C-alpha cells in the first residue's frame, strides 16, 4: 500500500492520523535530520525525511578553492569516516593527473583507512545501542575508540577530521611506534569484540528488538542504490574494495561478511564482522608494509590536472562513496560531485518503514547508520 492509500484507509476506518515531527532536534536521529511521520496511533503510515539542516554546500566550495585547498573539506563531509573520504578525492585527482603513489604510502593509507573504519563502527555500535535503551556499551566502545584516536593523532595531528593524505602519498611518515601500536591493537580489539558478542549481541532483549525487524529486500536496495552494510545485510556481497579494487586491497586477504535475512540483526552482524575483517587487514598490512618513500616527489604545488571528467569509488564505513571530478585544466576544480552512501541509504527509509511501529522504525533508522552531514554535504 502506498502511503496515500494507507492514510485513506485509516481515515475510512475512523482513525485520526496525526503528524509527528521526529527531529531535527531529537536524541535518536544522529545529527539534524527531520522525519515527518504521519501516524495512526503507534503505526507509521508515511515517513518523509526532510534533509538540508546541515547543508554547507561542499560542492560549491570545491569550485572556489584549488585542488589542494579543498582537502580539509573532504574530511568534514562524513567526519566519522574521514580518511576514506579524503582517499576518494585524492585518488580521483591522482587518476586525473596521472600521479603514482609509492607502495609504502598505499599501505599507510590502507592501515589508517581501516583503523578509521573500526572507529566509525564503534561509534555506530554505541549510538545504536543508546537508541535502543542500553546506555552502557557506548562508553565501552568509546574506550576502545580512544586507543585508535590516540594512534592516529600521533601521526596525523587530528583526532577526528584528518587531513592526512596528499596528492602522491601521505603527509607524514609512520614510525615504528605507530606500527607497534597498531600491531598490539589487533589482539586487544579481538578480545573486546568477543566481549561485545557475549555481552551485547547475545542479549535476549536486544535480539528480540532486532531480529525480524525492518526487513529490506535485495530489490529495495537495488532500486534505491543503497550500499554498504545495508546491501550486505540483505545478502548482496558488494564491497567496492573487491568489485573495483583500489590501493593495495588486491594483495590483502579478507572476507566480505553478508547475511541474507535483511533485518536489523543482519545489518548489525555485518558491521560487527566488518570490524573483525578490518583487524585482519590491519594485521596483514602492518606485516607487509615496505620501506620506502611516503610521498611521490615532484607533484606541483599548484596542480592542474588535464581537462576531462574522472571518478573514483571507495568503500567508506557507510557504503559506496563515489567522487566525480570535472577538470578544465585550471588550478581549481570545475565541478566536484560527491555520491555519498548515507544519501542513497536514507531514500529507502520511506518505503521500508511503512506500517511499522515507532520503536521499530527507530531501530531501523539506527541500523542504517546514517550520518546527516553525509546526506546534506
Amino acid at each position, binding site marked *: 500500500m502506498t502511503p496515500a492509500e494507507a492514510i485513506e484507509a485509516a481515515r475510512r476506518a475512523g482513525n485520526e492520523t496525526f503528524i509527528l515531527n521526529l527531529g531535527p532536534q531529537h536524541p*535518536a536521529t544522529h545529527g539534524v535530520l527531520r522525519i515527518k511521520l504521519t501516524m495512526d496511533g*503507534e503505526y507509521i503510515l508515511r515517513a518523509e525525511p526532510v534533509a538540508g539542516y546541515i547543508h554547507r554546500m561542499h560542492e560549491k566550495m570545491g569550485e572556489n578553492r584549488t585542488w589542494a585547498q579543498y582537502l580539509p573539506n573532504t574530511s568534514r563531509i562524513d567526519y566519522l569516516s574521514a580518511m576514506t573520504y579524503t582517499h576518494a578525492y585524492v585518488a580521483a585527482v591522482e587518476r586525473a593527473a596521472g600521479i603514482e603513489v609509492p607502495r609504502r604510502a598505499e599501505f599507510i593509507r590502507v592501515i589508517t583507512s581501516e583503523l578509521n573504519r573500526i572507529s566509525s563502527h564503534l561509534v555506530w555500535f554505541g549510538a545504536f545501542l543508546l*537508541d*535502543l*535503551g542500553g546506555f552502557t556499551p557506548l*562508553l565501552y566502545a568509546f574506550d576502545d575508540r580512544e586507543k585508535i584516536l590516540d594512534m592516529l593523532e600521533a601521526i596525523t595531528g587530528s583526532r577526528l577530521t584528518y587531513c592526512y593524505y596528499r596528492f602522491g602519498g601521505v603527509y607524514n611518515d609512520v614510525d615504528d611506534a605507530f606500527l607497534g601500536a597498531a600491531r598490539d591493537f589487533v589482539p586487544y580489539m579481538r578480545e573486546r569484540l568477543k566481549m561485545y558478542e557475549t555481552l551485547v549481541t547475545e542479549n535476549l532483549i536486544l535480539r*528480540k528488538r532486532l531480529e525480524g525487524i525492518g526487513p529490506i529486500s535485495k530489490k529495495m536496495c537495488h532500486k534505491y542504490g543503497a550500499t554498504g552494510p545495508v546491501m550486505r545485510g540483505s545478502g548482496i556481497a558488494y564491497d567496492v574494495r573487491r568489485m573495483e579494487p583500489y590501493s593495495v586491497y588486491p594483495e590483502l586477504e579478507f572476507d566480505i561478511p553478508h547475511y541474507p535475512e535483511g533485518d536489523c540483526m543482519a545489518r548489525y552482524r555485518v558491521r560487527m564482522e566488518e570490524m573483525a575483517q578490518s583487524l585482519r587487514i590491519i594485521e596483514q598490512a602492518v606485516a607487509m608494509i615496505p620501506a620506502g618513500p611516503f610521498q611521490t616527489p615532484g607533484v606541483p604545488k599548484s596542480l592542474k590536472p588535464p581537462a576531462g571528467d574522472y571518478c573514483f569509488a571507495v568503500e567508506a564505513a557507510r557504503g559506496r562513496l563515489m567522487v566525480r571530478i570535472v577538470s578544465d585544466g585550471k588550478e581549481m576544480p570545475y565541478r566536484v560531485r560527491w555520491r555519498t552512501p548515507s544519501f542513497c541509504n536514507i531514500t529507502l527509509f520511506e518505503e521500508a518503514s511503512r506500517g511499522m511501529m515507532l520503536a*521499530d522504525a527507530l531501530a531501523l533508522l539506527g541500523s542504517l547508520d546514517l550520518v546527516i552531514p553525509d546526506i546534506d554535504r
Partner: protein
Amino acid sequence: MNLPEPIRLVAFLVGLMAFVGFNAAYLVWAERKGSGRFQRRLGPTEVGFAGLLQPIADSIKLLTKQLLVPPTVDGLLFRAAPLLVIIPAMVSLAVIPFSENLVARDLHLGLLVVFSFGSIHVLAVMLAGWASRNKYAIISAARVVSQNVAYEIPMLLVVITILMTTNTTSLSEIVQKQAGPFWHWNIFRLDQNPLAPVTFLVFYICMLAETNRAPFDMAEAESELVAGAITEYSGMGFGVFFIGEYANVLVGCALATLLFLGGWQSPIGVLPGAFWFLLKMYVLIFAVMWVRWTFPRTQFYTLLNLSWKVLIPISLGTLVLTAITLKLF
C-alpha cells in the same frame, strides 16, 4: 518517649517528608555514581568530596529555574499532575513500618492503602501527558496507562498470594509473622507457597514496570520520545516528578522487603530492626539501578506480552498452588 498522638503524627510526617527528600536527592547521587562505575567512568566528583554535594547543587539549580508553563496547556491539570505523583508515594510511606515502633500510622488495611494510592500514579502521569498538549507527551501517556494497567494485575495477584498465607493486610503484622530465623521470611516459606522465590521475582518485575524504570521505561524512552509525558515540565515541576519517581521506587522496594524479605526482622538478631529494614530496601534499590544500566529497552508490545501472556499465568499458577498447599498442609 510518649508524645501526644497529634504531635507524634506530625513529627513522623515531617520525618517522612525529610526521608523522601533526602532519598530522592541521594539516590540520584548513588545512581550517577553507580552508573558511572558500570560504564567505567567516575560519575560526579567535583562538587564536594566524591560529588556528595552534587544533589544539593542540582536542587538549588532546579529551584532557581523558571517554572515555564506553556500557554497552550490545560492550566489546572498541568499544575496538579506533579503533586498527584508525589502525594500518593508519601501517603503510602506513612503506613510502612520501618521497625516495630517506627510507623506513622499502623492501619489494619495498610496493604490496601499502599495499592490504592499506588494506582493514582497512573492517573497522574496520564494527566501530565494529556495536559501538556504535546504529541510526544500524549503517546507517552497512552503507553504508561497500558503498561501500568497490565502490570498491576500480576502484582495484585502476587499480593493476594501473600495475603492468603499471612491472613492479614496490616503491614506490621505481616512482618511479625515472619519473625524468627531468616528461613521464616516469606521468600523462603516453601511450605506455604512452593513457588515463593518465583513470586518474589514476579513482584519485583511488576514493581520495575509500575515505577517505569528501565528496561520498562518505554513511557519516557529518552531516545524516542524525548522525555515522554514530562517533556513540557521545567525547573521544579520536573524536579517534583523526579522525586516522585524515586519515592515510588522507595515504596516499591520497601513493600518487597516487608512482604518477602521479613521487613525489619534481622537474620542474626544483633542490630536494631530499622537498620535491617533499610539495608534490605537499599539492596533492592541498588539492584533496580543495576538492571537499568545493563539491559536495553524492550519494545512496547513485547512488554505488554510479557505481562499478559507470561506474568499473569505464572501469578495465577502460584495463587492456585498456594491455595492447594495451604488447604492440604
